[in-house]
């Protein structure tokens, strides 16, 4: 029997199709994302997994000619409904990008940026910054230099800062778009450990082109190919007993 928390998905897409003009990004994707689970989206480059991820918090809105059909439900609300404010939505669905992208500001100001814009109480911000940095396993390394530039940090530290910055908004979902692709193996493994602790509090969706990473960090895996979802299921099952031949070929390195 499934645990009770998993009965209602925090986020789901129902027959989601994203087109750029006439070009199809992803087609007819239905996936459910549950609390306290890490879902990995895998597949070869250009298969649409990043496009799909960016449609979950409406980051695709900035691309001209983008056309969305189907539904994305967050806590039961259709996020593409005209009554939805995308800025408010993104405060609940945080995002970590491929390349660490700290603002050229101090470490403190980086994390405080979102909460200040969202009018969090000023008095709680210092505590919030400490909590976020602790959760991102960065506090001990930066606590004495909070007011120095974030660009003085190493790539791995910058990426953990970006995670701290995202969780300072107290989101319920964290979207991660190949968060380790610009990092060395040691920094990568720190981020992977971090994902394991973060999943207790957040619904995590991670795009990765690294299959070992998907196997290590995720509970559920969805395999994309040419804009379509080939299959999704428990990570263990996908990696050991894939149902589809394409999945097996990809996982065994026959293409991709």
């Amino acid at each position: 029997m499934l645990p009770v928390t998993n009965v209602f998905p925090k986020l789901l897409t129902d027959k989601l199709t994203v087109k750029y003009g006439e070009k199809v990004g992803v087609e007819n994707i239905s996936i459910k994302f549950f609390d306290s689970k890490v879902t990995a989206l895998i597949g070869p480059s250009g298969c649409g997994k990043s496009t799909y991820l960016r449609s979950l918090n409406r980051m695709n809105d900035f691309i001209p000619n983008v056309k969305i059909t189907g539904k994305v439900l967050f806590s039961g609300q259709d996020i593409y409904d005209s009554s939805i404010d995308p800025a408010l939505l993104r405060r609940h669905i945080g995002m970590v990008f491929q390349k660490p992208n700290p603002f050229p500001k101090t470490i403190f100001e980086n994390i405080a940026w979102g909460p200040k814009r969202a009018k969090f109480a000023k008095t709680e911000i210092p505590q919030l910054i400490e909590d976020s940095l602790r959760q991102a396993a960065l506090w001990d390394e930066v606590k004495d230099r909070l007011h120095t530039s974030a660009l003085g940090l190493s790539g791995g530290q910058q990426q953990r800062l970006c995670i701290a910055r995202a969780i300072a908004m107290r989101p319920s979902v964290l979207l991660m778009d190949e968060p380790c692709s610009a990092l060395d193996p040691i920094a990568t493994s720190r981020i992977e450990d971090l994902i394991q602790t973060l999943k207790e509090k957040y619904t995590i969706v991670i795009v990765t082109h690294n299959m070992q990473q998907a196997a290590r960090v995720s509970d559920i895996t969805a395999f994309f190919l040419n804009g379509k979802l080939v299959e999704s299921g428990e990570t263990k099952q996908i990696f050991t007993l894939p149902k589809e031949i394409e999945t097996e070929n990809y996982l065994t390195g026959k293409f991709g």
Partner: protein
Amino acid sequence: MKGLENTQSFALKRSLSSPSNSLSENIFKGLLYVATSVSVVTTIGIVVVLLSEAIQFFKEISFVEFFTGTQWTPLIEPKHFGILPLVCGTLLVGVGASLIAVPVGVASALFLSEYVRGSLRTILKSTLEVLAGIPTVVYGYLAITFVTPQLQQFIPNLEVFNALSAAIVVGIMIIPTISSVSQDAFEAVPRELRDAAYGLGGRKHQVAMTVVFPAALSGFVASVILGFSRAIGETMAVTLAAGSTPKLSFNPLQSIQTMTSYIVQVSLGDTPAGTIEYRSIFVVGLTLFSMTLISNLIAQWFSRRFQERYL
């Protein structure tokens, strides 16, 4: 050598049929060198002429009188050579023009870089750049025939020639400079920073003001200094609009004289070469040159000091 008998032979030596090194390369390099030298030599030449005339000038007029004197009357007796009234008039127009052009220029730059895209952006940007192509003399008579009469309806004691109208038209004139340089700086801010800000739930105006603008601060400062330098160096429009009455006053409703207008006044008159009046225009030119140079240095210092570095 043993073992290398089968080595294929390649033509690697220089020869007349392939004069890779010397002639063509040197001619090309020489042309580039000459082209570069033209502007360097010209700059040096101008500074030398300005300085040598200035030295002659300062043999007759003391530094103290020149830099602290409050009257500028080189063409009428008794002659006074205090530069302050001209500096004052120049700054009045330069600062006034910047007060108009900086907010408008930055606002339009932000609008163009953050709010519109595609063909609308191109159309608006090129329209703005047409503004930069209007001859400055046109702005001058625009001031006299349109701006001043309109202003006089609200400000009855506005003189026919006045610093206010000059500042307004020069301000309009330098909007494209400020806007276009700032826009380039805003657009150069990496998309990743905008992604980060929008991903945190930032709204457009918040992203524009607290991420894009600070990241492009040095480009913005450069645009302001460039605009300001253009404003204080502007001649035709201010000569027409502001008149030629050197006055140590910050009242923009009166006629004033800027450094450039004074130079025009003397150059157009029949002042004989070698006289003190004649030499005074070189000293005024040198002063103006120094002001522009100093503002450029301040801009460089400022952008080094406050620049937020990109990724």
